[in-house]
């Protein structure tokens, strides 16, 4: 199951026209290298959309979100097998 985290994180990545690809992120003191971006989605409730990135790092799935209104990144959830 996905465990809810909702903690602020730092993210580094690559911008190409119309697209951002996270390459690594820091959660607490640990840095995770993104091995794959498995799903992108955009959620709109209000004028400012929230961008969701599901990424594989250290062998598990992390759900990240980017909030453009305050340029904030969050680690929303992490997959934990058997939880």
């Amino acid at each position, binding site marked *: 199951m996905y465990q809810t985290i909702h903690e602020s994180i730092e993210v580094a990545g690559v911008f190409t026209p119309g697209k951002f690809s996270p390459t690594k992120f820091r959660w607490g003191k640990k840095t995770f290298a993104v091995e794959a971006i*498995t*799903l992108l*989605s*955009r959620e709109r*409730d209000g*004028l400012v959309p929230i961008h*969701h990135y599901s990424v*594989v790092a250290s062998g*598990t799935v992390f759900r990240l979100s980017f909030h453009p209104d305050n340029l904030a990144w969050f680690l929303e959830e992490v997959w934990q*097998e058997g939880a």
Partner: protein
Amino acid sequence: MHVDINSYFATLLQQENPALRGRPVGILKDVGRTCVIAASKEAKKLGVGTGTSAYEAKRLAPEIVFLPAEFARYLDATKRLKKIFSNLVPDYEIFSLDEAFLNLTDCTRLYPDAQEFGRHVQQLIKDDLGEFVTSNVGISWNRFLAKMAGEIAPKGSVAEITAENIDHYFATTEFKDVCGIGRRLEKRLAHLGVTRLYDLHFVTDEQLETEFGPYWSKELRKMSEGKEPSLFAHHAKNEQPKSVSRSITGFSLAKDEAEIRAVMRNLIDEVMYKAREMQLSGRWAAVSLSGEGQHWWSHQRVDMPIRHAQELFDILYHQLYSQWDRTFNVIRWRVVLSDLGSWETTPEPWLPDWQRQEKLEQAAQELNKRFGLFTVRSGVLLQRPLIRPEVTGYLGDRQYVLGP
């Protein structure tokens, strides 16, 4: 051409999480729910399907992984599918959350080989949504047949119904794979010895009319001749919705009057927000409640179209619900605003109270549009968990969520 994403709800979550690929996955509406609303192809192979209880699913597939539905992700993926289709053909139709029709009639010079084009579409979907997202493509000369071809094709493949093979398809396809024939109709057909579309050739029009009445006899005849039944016309694009409704099933029976009122108000606010976004008002309102194996409903038709959440709440709660001598505790709510008409064709009342309310609703609508639904909400909903909008597979509110 009919395009259908395989096991959409589950496949997208398997695409997201490689650890789930190849495993049976059951999608529940929310954490704590007990009914599977969608299953992965692996779960389907083990007998788990839509409507299977979580308990039964666990018995059929002990390794099954249950996940809550991610409606926002599904809807976003559908919007991306819409974008793919709009880049390919001028005439396409989103039929449900995971299905679309592409009209290739005017594109035969651009796409001379329909099957090759189908494989191209499948690849574009994979490129956009992910490698694990497979789709079925069905091709024929109308939507009814294209959908049938897609339904029975092996997962991830392209199939075509042609004049040469149509009899084979009609003689072998089960009714569960025929759009327009539900279980009740299937049972009634079985009484006539009809278990496949092809069998209808041996039933006369008179027999059909005697058994099914004037409407269904003609629909069935159309299907047996490979023509589109009327339901496809009802899905025509840009058709103004006839009603807006919202229902919810609670986690447990509601005994508390304040809870019943708050849920009703919550659903009403969502219904009215959607209606107002589409600039529609309604003349017919209904509320229905269920629980403890019982059901109650009431409705009212009004002369002046309902355009405000407060008006709808006054009718459904203060007028209709308050007259009911509550005989059971409630677990399911449904509110409906129907007989919708455009604001453009509906005269606006000049009553000062109505005008004042209109200004309030306009302001609330604008704030909610800018900052998110329920940012401004009735005091009835304060200090209560909010029920957020969700999409259904059928995508009955496609005009609202996807736009024209």
